[in-house]
C-alpha cells in the first residue's frame, strides 16, 4: 500500500491569514500538499472538480474559515453535508470568531473540531501540528 500524504485544503478569504497558515505549516516542517480556496464556492469546485478545477482526491482535510464572501463557512458545510459524495468530508473550522452561535452551528454540521485562530504564531504552529498528527492517526474516508 502506497503511503499517500494527507492534503490540506485551506478555505480562507484573507491572504495574510493564508500566508500565516502556510508559514506555520512550513515552520512545522510538514510536507503535506496544501490547496487554497478563497471562499466556499471555490472550495466546492475544487472538491467536485467543477469549473475547470482539478478535483482534489482523498485523503484530505479541510480547514474552514467562517466569515467569507460569496459563500461563508456555514453555507459551505450545508452544501457538502447534503452532497452524497462529500457528506463525509473531515472539516476543521479555523477562525477568529468565538461566537457561541458559530460554534454551535459548526458542530451541528459535524465538524471534526473548532479551532480558534490566535495571533500568536507559536500557538498556530501547535494547532497545525495537531492537525497533521490527527490526519496521520485517524483513518479518513476514502
Amino acid at each position, binding site marked *: 500500500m502506497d503511503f499517500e500524504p494527507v492534503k490540506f485544503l485551506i478555505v480562507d478569504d*484573507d491572504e*495574510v*491569514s493564508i*500566508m*500565516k497558515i502556510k*508559514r506555520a505549516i512550513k515552520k512545522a516542517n510538514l510536507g503535506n500538499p496544501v490547496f487554497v480556496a478563497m471562499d466556499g464556492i471555490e472550495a466546492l469546485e475544487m472538491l467536485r472538480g467543477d469549473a475547470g478545477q482539478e478535483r482534489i482526491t482523498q485523503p484530505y482535510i479541510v480547514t474552514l474559515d467562517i466569515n467569507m464572501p460569496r459563500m461563508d463557512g456555514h453555507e459551505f458545510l450545508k452544501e457538502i453535508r447534503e452532497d452524497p459524495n462529500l457528506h463525509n468530508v473531515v472539516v476543521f473550522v479555523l477562525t*477568529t*470568531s468565538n461566537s457561541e452561535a458559530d460554534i454551535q452551528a459548526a458542530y451541528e454540521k459535524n465538524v471534526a473540531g473548532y479551532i480558534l485562530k490566535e*495571533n500568536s*504564531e507559536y500557538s498556530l504552529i501547535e494547532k497545525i501540528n495537531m492537525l497533521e498528527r490527527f490526519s496521520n492517526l485517524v483513518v479518513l474516508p476514502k
Partner: protein
Amino acid sequence: MLGLLSKLTTRWRTSVVFKLSVATSAIVLLVAMLQLIVGTQIIRLNGAQASILTDSIPLLDKAQKFSKLTALTVSETKLLEEHLTKTELDKLRIRYLKNDAEAQVIFFDILSLDRDRLDTALFQYIRDEFVAANEALFQNQFTQRDLEREVQEYSAYLLSLTSSFEDIIDQLLIVSSTEVLSRSADLGATSGLVQKELDMFLVFAREVEVLNSLKSGAVDFSNMIQGRFGQLSQHDVSALADRLNFRLKSTSLSLTLLGNSEARAKLAQLASELSKGLFSDPGYLYFLRELQASREDVETLKRHRDATVSDIGDQVQLIMQEATGSFRADIALTSRLTQNIKLIGIATTVVVLAVLVLLNGQVINKQISQRFTLLTEDVLNFARGNYAHEIRVSGEDELGDIANALNVFKEQAAELERSNAELQRFAYVAAHDLRSPLDAIQDLATWTLEDERDDLSAACIANLELLIKRSARLSALQADLLTYAQVGQIDTTIGPISLSEEVNKMSDMLDPGGDFQITLLNDPGTVVTYSLPLRQILLNLLTNAIKHHDLPTGKIVVTFSRSPGVLRFAVEDDGPGIEPRFQKRIFGLFKTLKSRDRVEGSGLGLAFVLKLTSRLGGKIEVESHAPEQRGTRFIFEIADLCENDKVSDVA
C-alpha cells in the same frame, strides 16, 4: 341635576379613587342606616319596657293588694260567721274594726294606684255596701242580744205568773179535795143521803175537776213558754201565739166555773196579767217576733255581705284580667319588637353583606384589584424585559393612565433595547473586524523582519519594530474594547470562589518575578458570588496597582469584609496615589493619566470594572490622598449569594 349626574358618571369612569370613595361611602351609609333602624326599634323596645314598668307592674301590684283585700274580707266574714255569739260580741267588734281599718288602708292604696283605670265609684259603692252590711250585721246582733234578754225577762215574768196561778190552784185543790174526801166519808157514815149534802159534794168534786183542768192548762202554758224561743220560725211564733191565746181563753172559761169567787177573782187577775204580758205591745210575743225578724234580717244581711264579697272577688278578677292582659300585651309587644330587631338585624346584615359583596366584586375587585393585579403582572413582565407582552389594562381612570404611560415606556424601552442591541452588535463586529487587518499588519511586519532583516537598513528595522509595537498596542486596545463591549452579556454564573487561591494565581500571573508582595487579609475561605466578574474585577485592580506603580517593588493588600448580602473588597497599594481631581476621570472610557508610551494601557480597565460592578448591583470607590500621601485604595462591593439562592434579574 342632569349636569351633576353626567359629572358623577365622568368621575366614576375616570377615577379609581372616586370609585373607592363611593364604595366606602356606600358601606358607611349602609352601616349608619342599619344603626338608625336598629336604634329606632330599640327605642320602641325601651318604650314597651317602660310601659311594663309603669302600667303592667302597678296593675299586678294592685291585683296582689286586691287579693290581699279579698283574703282579709273572707277572713272577716269567716270570723263573724264563727264567733258571732252574744258573749264575745264586743271583743269581736274590736277585732273586726281593727281588721277593717287594715282593709280600708289597702282599699285606699288600691284606689290611689290608678284612679283612671278603675271604676272608682262602683268600687267605692261595693266597699261601702260591704262595710254597711257588716255594720248592720253587728247592729242586728246587738239588737238580737237585747231582744233575747227581753224575751227571757218576759218569759220569766210569765212563768212566775203561771207559777202563782198554779200555787193558787194547788191551795184551792187541797181545800176542795179535803172537802171532797171529808164529804165522801160523811156520806159513807150517814148512809142515808141528804140531798143537800150530796149537792155540796158534787160542787166540790166539780171544783176539783175544774181546778185540775186549770192546773194542767197552767203546766201546758209554762211548758210552752219555757226555753223554746231559740229555734222558732215566724210561723212557729204565730202558732205559739194561737195556742197560748186558746189556752188563755179556755182557762178564762174554766175560771167562770170556779166556785170560790175570791180565788176566781185572784186567778182572773193573774190570767189578765198573763194575757197582757204575752200579747201587749211590747210583750213576750212582740219581742219574740222582733227577735225572729232580727234573725231573718241577719240572714239577709249575711247574704248581702256575701254578695259584696263576691262582687269584690269579681272586681279583683277583672283587675287581674286587665293586669295580666296588659302585661301579656306588653310582653307580646316586647317580644315582637325583639323579633323585629332580630329580623331587621338579619335583613340589614344580609343587605350589607350583599352590597359589600357587590361592591367588592364590581368595584373593588373588578374595577381595582383585578386590574391592579394585571397591571402589576404586566409591569413585572415589562421589568423582566418582556417587551412583547401586551399591557392588558385599559380605561380612562388612573389605572388606565398608568397603563397608557406604561405602553409608552414599553415602546421606548423596546426601542432602547433594540438600539442597544444594535449598538452592542455594532461594537462587537467593529472590534472583531479590526482584528484581522491588525493581525495582518503585525504579521507582515514581523515576517519582513524575520525573513529580510539582513537586507534592511538600521532605520528600516527601527521603523518596522515601531510599527509592530504600535500595532500591538492597537491590538490590545481592540481586545479590551471587545471585552468592554461584551459586558452587556455578563457571565452571571454563580459559584464558589476561593479568594486566597485566586489572589495567589493572579499574583503568579501578573508578577512572576515576585517583586510585589500581594497579601489577602481576613481571608473568608470560599465565597459564593458571580465568580467570573469577581475575578475580572480583582485582576483589573491588581493589574492596575502593579502597572501604575512608580517603583520596581511594592506591597498590595486585599482586605475582605462582609455585611449582610454584600461582599466588600479593598485593594490598597503603596504606589504614587491618585490626586483627588483625577479620581473621577479614571473611571471614564479611554482615560489614562499617563502617556501610553510610558505605561501601556487602553484606558478601559477601570471603565470595565465600573460597568461590571454597577451591572451587578454593586459599587466601586477610590480613596487616595496624593500627593500628600502615597497609596491608593479601591473599595468595591459585590452581592453575597451564599445565604440565598436567588439569582438577581439585573443582568
